[in-house]
Every structure is written in C-alpha cells, then in structure tokens.
C-alpha cells in the first residue's frame, strides 16, 4: 500500500528526514516512536503533502502511484488521512458545512453524486457516536473553542466520515486525559478493516495499549534506527530511547 524509499526532506536548508525506508501493507498498524525532534511530525506532514517541507530525494509509492507528485487534496481523495497533532480552527465554517464539502469532493472523485442532506445528517450522527461526540458540535465552527480532547475526537470523527485507506495519526494522544484517550483509541479500532492501514505516530507507549501495532519503528535524527514487533514499544517505555541510541 505504502512504500517509502530513502526519503530525504528538509525545511529551508536544514535536513530533517535523512533516508526513511518504510513499507506498510493493507490491514497493518504501524507505530512510529521516537524522541522529540526526531522527525516524526515531518514525516506525517510530508506524506500528506504540506509544502513547508521540500523533498530532496527519495520516493514514496502509494497504491502504485508516485505520491509525491500529488497535491494534498488528491492524496486525500485517494484515501490518505492525516489526524493532526494541532487541529486548526476555522471560524465561521460549521463542522457540518466543512464535512459536507469534504465528503462531496471525495464523492466527486469517486464519480458519485453529492450526498443528500438527509443521508448526510444520518451518516454524521452515526459517525459522531463512534467518538461519543455531542451532536451540538456539528453546528459549531470547525475546532473553534474546542478543548484539546474535543479537537482530537473531531479528528477521528472526520476520519470515520471519510473512511481513509491509510490513516496517519500524528500524536493523537497528546493532550488527552485517560477517558478521552480511550474514546479516541476505541474509535480508531472500530474503523479498522482488513483493507486499510494505520500509521500511529506517538511519543508514548500508552496509546499503544489501546491501538495495538503490528510493527513498531523507532525514528531518531531523521532515520529509522530500529524496527520490531509491539514488544519494542514496551521496552522503550521501560528503558527509554538511550539504549537504542547507544546501539548505533
């Protein structure tokens, strides 16, 4: 589904990703862990097409296409979803309007007619239940005045609406209390299907208690320095990153 080959990316003249290699297959959950400043968020932003970063070399294949040649919206239409670490507020644009516009652009790409108002509201109610979101949120401005937890729930709600093939969750656990974490993680698990994949980017192991990864990668200074099964996350939790860095 996703194959990253020797990916280098920089911001200005500072190289942040220094040769990433990663393969994700349908049905898999991958976790990317690493200390602050290792390039985790850069990787997710580059995959989503944020133009603050320049890809200097390397290749990303996604479903047999050159992902880097696509615009952010084209990536979205093809099933790439980024759950933001800091979701942006858009005053004046209601959640309903935002989601309806997004969904209809996806449907247009799929050759489907725009969704009817009734169908949309029904769908929205169903998906809001997944993250136990108060329906009153639908008429509020996108993320405006939302608490940290509400913003993250909103991200997973949007993910549920768009049914992505590859979901990249960037530090979705940051700023969440235990209850919110459980709700968000349960939401993600309920959306799991054999034909979609998830890339969980996280600083801490605790999210991985809920979303159990098949593979864990450790990112350090722009490179993946270790890849193993889910037990690696537990080891990191107990021993920190230093022993891994010393192994280098």
């Amino acid at each position, binding site marked *: 589904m996703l194959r990253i080959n020797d990916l280098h990316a920089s911001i200005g003249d500072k190289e942040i990703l220094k040769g990433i290699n990663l393969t994700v297959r349908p049905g898999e959950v991958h976790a990317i862990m690493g200390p602050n400043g290792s390039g985790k968020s850069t990787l997710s932003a580059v995959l*989503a*097409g*944020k133009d*603050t970063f320049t890809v200097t070399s390397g290749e990303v294949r996604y479903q047999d296409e050159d992902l880097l040649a696509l*615009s*952010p*919206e084209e*990536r*979205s*239409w093809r099933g790439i*979803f*980024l759950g*933001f670490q800091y*979701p*942006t507020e*858009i*005053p*004046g*644009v*209601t959640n309903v*309007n*935002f989601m309806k*516009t*997004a969904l209809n*652009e*996806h449907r247009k*790409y799929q050759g489907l007619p725009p969704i009817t108002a009734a169908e949309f509201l029904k769908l929205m109610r169903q998906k809001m239940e997944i993250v136990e979101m108060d329906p009153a949120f639908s008429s509020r*401005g996108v993320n405006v005045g939302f608490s940290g937890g509400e913003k993250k729930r909103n991200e997973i709600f*949007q993910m549920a609406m*768009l049914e992505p093939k590859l979901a990249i969750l960037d530090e979705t656990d940051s700023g969440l209390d235990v209850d919110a974490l459980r709700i968000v993680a349960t939401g993600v698990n309920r959306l799991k299907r054999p034909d979609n994949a998830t890339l969980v980017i996280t600083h801490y192991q605790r999210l991985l208690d809920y979303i159990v990864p098949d593979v864990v990668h450790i990112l350090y200074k722009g490179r993946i320095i270790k890849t193993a099964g889910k037990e690696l996350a537990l080891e990191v939790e107990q021993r920190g990153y230093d022993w891994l860095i010393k192994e280098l």
Partner: protein
Amino acid sequence: MNPANELLHDITNSEYRHGFETQVSQEFFPKGLNEEIVRMISERKQEPEWLLEFRLEAFRKWQKMKMPNWAHLRIPEIDYQDIIYFAAPKQPKTEGEIDPELMKTFDKLGIPLDERKALSGMAVDAVFDSVSVKTTFRESLAEKGIIFCSFSEAVRDYPELVRKYLASVVPVGDNFFSALNSAVFSDGSFCYIPKGVRCPMELSSYFRINARGTGQFERTLIVADEGSYVSYLEGCTAPQRDENQLHAAVVEIVVLADAEVKYSTVQNWYPGDSEGRGGIFNFVTKRGICKGNNSRLFWTQVETGSAITWKYPSTILRGDNSVSEFYSVAVTNHHQQADTGTKMIHLGKNTRSRIISKGISAGRSENSYRGLVRVSKNAENARNYSQCDSLLLGDRCGAHTFPFIQSDNPSAVIEHEATTSKISDEQLFYCRQRGISEENAVGLIVNGYAKEVINQLPMEFAVEAQKLLQVSLEGSVG
C-alpha cells in the same frame, strides 16, 4: 491575439460570467457634456420644464465642483468630455414591444422579463444603458396601489410625487457625483408603497451597462408611506472591456412613520482583468431618511465588482425611535479598489443603528471601510453598534478602516469593534488534507466569514451572493 495569449486571457478572465456584449442597434448622443447635451436628454424624454430647470441647475453646480479626493483610492484622470451620456436601444416599431435580443440578454443574466418565466415573487425594472426596458408585474402591483415603474414613466404619470421627493434626501449639490447624476440621469426606477400596504413581492432594479464608451447615470427613488413595507433589490453587471466605464447613480429612500424598507444590493459590475485593465468606476450616492417616527431602513450590500467603488449607503434617523442597519460585504481582488461604508446620522430620540461591515481583500487590491456615526444634540438615548472586520488573503493587499464618531449628546451609547484576520496556510492545508481544493476552501472560509451579512439577503439572492463571493476570489491564492 496569438493563441497562447488568448488562452491566458480566457483563464485570467474566466471568473467574470457576465462579460458578454449584446449586439443591438442603439442610438447614441454625441460624446461630451455641456448644456446642450443636458437639454437634449430632457427633450428626448419629453420632460416638463421644472425637471429641465432641475437638471440645468445641477449642471451649473457640477461645473463649479471638483472630484472628491479624500477617499483611499487612486483614481485615474476621468475625461468627462470623452463619455457618451445617453445610449438607448432603438425602439421596435410597435409600442410596448421589446427587442428579442434584449429579452435574451436579461434571460442570460437570469432576470427573465417574460412574466411567465419570471422568478416567483419578484418584480423587476430592467435598465439597459440609459433606458428602462421593461418593468414586470406593474399591473398586479397597481391593484394594491403600489407604483413601480421606470423613472421616466413616473415623471410622466406621477409628476407631483416625483417633484415632492426628488432630491429631498440627496440634494443636487450634495457631492460631485450626485450633481453630475442630477444633470444627466437618463432613467432608473421609481417606487411608491401607499399607506399601510405590505408589498407582496420583492421589487428590484437590474442595471446593465452594454454600450462602449458610455456612462450609466440612473436614479432610484423609493417612497414608503406610513405603515408600509417593501423589500427592494438591486443588481448590476457589465461587459468585459479594456476601457473603464463610469457609473454614477443616486438612490433616495424616504421612509415615513411606522414604515419599513429593506434595500439589498448585489453589485457585480465588471471589475477589470487580473492586471487591472478595464472595469467600472462606481461612484454612487445612496441615502435614505427615516422620516417618520418608528420607521426602519435596512441596507444590505454585497460588493464584488467594479474597478473602483466609492459608495456609502447612509441613513438619516430623523423620526423618534427610528432604526437603521447596514450590513456589508465588500470583496476586492487583483487590482480592485473599494472605499465603502455608511453614515448613520442620529437626529431623533431613541434612534438605533447597527453597522456590520466585512471587508475581504485579495491580490493587490485595496479595501477600505469608511463610516460616520453622528449623534446630534437632540438625539436623546441614541444607540449605535459598529463592527468592522477585515479579512486578508495574501500579503500584497490592503485593508483599512476609517471610522468617524461624533456625539453631541451625552446620553448616546456608541460601540465600535474591529478585527483583522488572515486566511492562514494552516487553515488551507487542513481543508486540503480533507479533500477540499484550495479554491473551495477559500470559498468556504470566506462565506463563513460573510455569513452574518449574506443571511440578511432574500433567499434567492443569498445563494447567488455566496457563489459570487467564491467566483470573485478565484485565482486569489496559490
């Protein structure tokens, strides 16, 4: 033009959908402005002596006046002798018949003049260059005593009403452009709602400039008698040309005791191309008076067009307890310039006004809000609330706010709030990540921002206005 240039031209101009020109045989007066031209216009319209005198007096005043230069606008030199002041499509042989080309033109603009095809609940006075082509639903409105006709017909059929109210709100010498208009106005709309009558449909004027080298100078006069109600709409478009054309209109509204008038404008004159070539120079004086006690006047404007906009719909709150509100969205893109706002003049006791102004600037445009709130000595307990927001797209445009507040009565409560914001790259990326293309994202954010104003428009207009906002900002990002 070589094919590559032609393509470029098509792309950069694709946003203006009303840029076509109607091929119709027209009659023109010679270029230039002098007493003879003023007399010719009056004679051509078979006007009474008093109106000719009115025009001549205005012309003499205008000759002594100078173009105002206080606005935040760069206005190129306008050669008033290089403009045609009267252009009218030639009349078909039979009275009352309309050239099919004109019918087609208004059909294309979405304003069918055939009453069978017309939008339900909306009567239209269609003005093409210097003349009113047709006023729909006149007869059915007349059954309720409502007069809705072209200005020329009003002068002919209701001279006493016209004479009583003409220039009673905007005096001839009020400003350079109102004087010019008073001298050469060629047509426009007239509306009178009798006592206690609630007008059953939306009334509207649609202004279309077509002929090259001409200016359009129309007048609108609306009188709402005691206890009456009317909602009035105004729309305007023009062909896409490299030359600048002048539009200098005057709108006067008289609201008597307990009456209510809603006046909405969707201004979509050709704004010029992305390089700033062509477009309409829009210098308009709009003013209403809440003359009687408990009268109400509501302005809503969506301004997306024109190369230059100079326009301040204003209200004189003379009656006690009278209320006026002004809702405005002004969009400027590319090289457009707008200096627009309102004046609320509180004279009566317990008068209330509210100003909601939303400016949106993109490209290299300049967008200014200019407003005056004045409370006179006798206006006990006057209230005003003003909110002026500016939204910037990109970093080469300008937004400016010039609020003037003047209170001569200590019981007045005046509030003013202002904000400036930008559409951030983060917001755009967030939208795009969810599959919303950049243009649609801008449209979504801008419409969200302008919602409070758009919601004031009658339904059909609100939908149009939303589309228009998005179209006007095409090519403003990326």
